[in-house]
């Protein structure tokens, strides 16, 4: 496996002047050609303020651009529509200089007014954007989000090419926020012309424009000839065929009718594909910003005792669980996945040790174990994983009954204070919105998430750690990037001492492609564009 990035890589990117760092185009790449990608589900929307699932995320990335962007195949930031940016001494004011000659698909030139309109739109409560909360650090957010003010007072147009954004607190993740799809720049006239249906008639500045959308059948993306990034994209056309079962997509790929099955290799066929050398060589494996974990409700006895939680950490046989999913993951020992900056390399975690776990449980006053409940989402392989966990717990005397429920019910149970003692996160696990360690803390381990309806299912609230986290995120100066990541590493190590979770595994990604698909392997396991980075892949024969 190719390690996608190391934490040092990100530091380098932040420390360098914005313009210097960029992607070296593949010398073998040839322009032209068309590919076919399949999906089971219809595409929900292509509105960048609304789209928030992994299927439309990468599609929106190809139609729209934001001020910031990532170097293809990596988690390193690079400027997008911004040519350069400056951060003030106090870390509160960001001044973005926009590129010259960027046009929307409708032919109009993009200006700073469009950037302001787009940020105002995404935070407007009328838009009902699931991403509005990401912009909370911008001055005037509260007034805009509650509908009291029109637009964000902290976003100012200086001139056509310059926009200034003022924050209420220094936020080291702000440039990542500006690279989120939610911060994409949209033209006001097209949004208004579409009525409520901008998601079906998107207009952006991206490398591709939407050519055709036949609901329930296909979407066709066409190369945008006037795209501001020279030579991008390589492909003339991408057809997304929807309504195709993953298993059918695989058969069609073998027939040469499909280039990338968007939903991946169906689990039932995984072993067969990987054991066939001809097929396996067309599979690209990579890391994912994902961690699967077991939460223990720290407000409910006996899990309010840290020793009990630590004992459970020692009792789970992670290798066996990974076998259940055909080895499509690596064992985890901390909340952050290995491809996330801030991951602690030399940490060993809780070793699998039944005897030590039993001893610790006895020390906590439960020599004979206890009875509890394990909540789990009811789609394969999660109930099977839950059974493995159940057996592991049995070994140290804990008798867990499995509550196998629909996804929404498990999420609802997790969001109630004393409802679910243990939850296996499979099928609902946290996948990072952007490649920064802070994204794994606030909502799922911080006090802010430990509220009714929240995602902190351990109900773990350590105010000391919250303070540390806030301090780390205020270190916005690129010079402090390394120190900041160190701080985040400390936060997660402290979390592990308190052990509200059992981190179980980090899922790997497997993208299958047709023989004619070209481009660096990293483009096929791009950490921010799933399944592939559409703008940079190419075909070797047309």
């Amino acid at each position, binding site marked *: 496996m190719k390690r996608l990035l190391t934490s040092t890589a990100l530091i380098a990117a932040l420390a360098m002047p914005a313009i210097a760092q960029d992607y070296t185009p593949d010398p073998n790449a040839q322009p032209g050609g068309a590919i076919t990608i399949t999906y089971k589900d219809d595409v929900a929307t292509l509105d960048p303020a609304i789209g928030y699932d992994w299927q439309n995320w990468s599609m929106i990335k190809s139609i729209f651009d934001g001020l910031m962007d990532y170097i293809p195949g990596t988690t390193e930031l690079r400027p997008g529509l911004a040519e350069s940016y400056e951060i003030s001494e106090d870390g509160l004011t960001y001044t973005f200089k926009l590129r010259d000659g960027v046009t929307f698909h409708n032919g109009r030139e993009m200006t700073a007014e469009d950037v302001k309109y787009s940020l105002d739109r995404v935070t407007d409560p009328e838009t*009902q954007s699931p*991403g509005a909360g990401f912009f909370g650090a911008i001055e005037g957010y509260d007034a805009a989000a509650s509908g009291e003010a029109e637009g964000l007072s902290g976003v100012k147009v200086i001139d056509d090419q310059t926009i200034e954004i003022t924050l209420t607190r220094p936020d080291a993740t702000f440039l990542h926020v500006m690279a989120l799809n939610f911060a994409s720049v949209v033209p006001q006239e097209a949004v208004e012309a579409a009525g409520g249906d901008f998601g079906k008639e998107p207009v952006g500045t991206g490398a591709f424009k939407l050519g055709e959308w036949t609901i329930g059948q296909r979407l066709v993306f066409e190369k945008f000839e006037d795209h501001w990034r020279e030579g991008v994209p390589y492909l003339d056309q991408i057809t997304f065929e929807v*309504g195709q079962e993953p298993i059918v997509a695989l*058969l069609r790929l073998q027939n040469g009718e499909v280039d990338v099955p968007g939903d991946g290799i169906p689990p039932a066929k995984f072993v067969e594909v990987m054991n066939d050398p001809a097929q396996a060589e067309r599979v690209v494996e990579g890391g994912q910003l994902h961690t699967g974990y077991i939460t223990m409700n720290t407000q409910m006895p006996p899990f309010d005792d840290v020793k009990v939680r630590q004992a459970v950490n020692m009792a789970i046989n992670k290798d066996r669980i990974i076998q259940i999913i055909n080895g499509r993951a690596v064992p985890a020992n901390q909340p952050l996945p290995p491809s996330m900056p801030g991951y602690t390399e030399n940490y060993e975690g809780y070793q699998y040790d039944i005897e030590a776990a039993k001893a610790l449980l006895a020390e906590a006053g439960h020599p004979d174990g206890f009875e509890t409940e394990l909540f789990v989402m009811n789609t394969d392989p999660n109930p099977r994983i839950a059974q493995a966990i159940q057996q592991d717990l049995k070994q140290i005397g804990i008798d867990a009954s499995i509550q196998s429920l629909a996804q*929404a019910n498990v999420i609802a149970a997790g969001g109630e204070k004393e409802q679910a003692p243990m939850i296996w996160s499979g099928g609902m696990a946290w996948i990072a919105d952007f490649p920064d360690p802070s994204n794994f803390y606030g909502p799922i381990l911080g006090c802010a998430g430990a*509220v009714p309806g929240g995602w902190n299912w351990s109900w773990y609230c350590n105010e000391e750690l919250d303070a540390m986290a806030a301090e780390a995120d205020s270190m916005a100066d690129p010079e402090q990037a390394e120190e900041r990541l160190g701080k985040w590493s400390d936060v997660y190590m402290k979390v592990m001492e308190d052990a509200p979770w059992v981190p179980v595994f980090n899922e790997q990604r497997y993208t299958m492609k047709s023989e004619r698909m070209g481009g660096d392997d990293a483009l096929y396991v791009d950490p921010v564009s799933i399944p592939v980075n559409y703008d940079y892949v190419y075909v070797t024969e047309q």
Partner: protein
Amino acid sequence: MAAYVFRRLIVSVLILLGVSFITFFLLYALPADPVRQIAGRSATAQTVENIRQQLGLDQPLLVQYWRYLTGLVQGDLGRSYLQRTDVGTLIAARLPASLLLMAGAIGCELVLGLTMGVIAALKRGTATDQSLMIASFVGVSAPQFVVGLLLLYVFAVQLGWFPIGGYGTWAHLVLPSLTLGIMGSGWYSRMMRSSMVDVLRADYIRTARAKGLTRRRVILRHALPNAILPVIAMIGIDIGIFMGGIVVVESVFGWPGIGQLAWQAIQRVDIPIIMGVTLVSACAIVLGNLLADLVTPLIDPRIKLR
């Protein structure tokens, strides 16, 4: 007749109202909170509350139901929570594909079912009869997703006669219609067989034979038209049965109809879409049954509608 149709239409409306009422309350009894789904996991409590108010989801259920009904009367099926588009548009875009599939399935089940039934009746008591009836039994019992995948594997993957799923040409239509039609053809062959057996015993067939007509002419001109009528009357009811089947078949074959739409919406708990598809299906079932009842007296004058 007119009075009968009028009365049936009134009853149909009441049935649809009942369906909408039950579906609405069942869907909203789900623990999934649509507002949280829209708001996303990064939303603050205030954002969640704002959205709830904008969608009117903070109102009592009965008020929400009343609003839904008033919208419905004006042809407004509401807006999808996740796709943020009119449900009516989504259904209208997909309905033609479903209707085409149903037409194909009706064709398949009639051709297969009637042929098998007639042959079985003519060869009554022989091994042919028995094997045909066993085949029809298997057809009725086999789950559609199994039949679909089997047909797909044999005829599309192995033999390459038909495309592997998708939509667009006549060749795409064959396997899904066959899958959907096979179950019905099982019923039809059994009905056709017994109807044909009865007719063959009738006096007028003996008379026809006694007149010295050829066997071929007796069967095709005298027996078949009489035997086929009760079977034809069943087509209306099939429409209802197909409405259930298309959810499975469309998903297996990637057929862009309303069944697939329903399946995707169920997985994403997109309540307005589930609601819309359920109502459209209920309409189809009610209309299909009404059609079946209206056609019956035309076919058999002994039956009177009152």
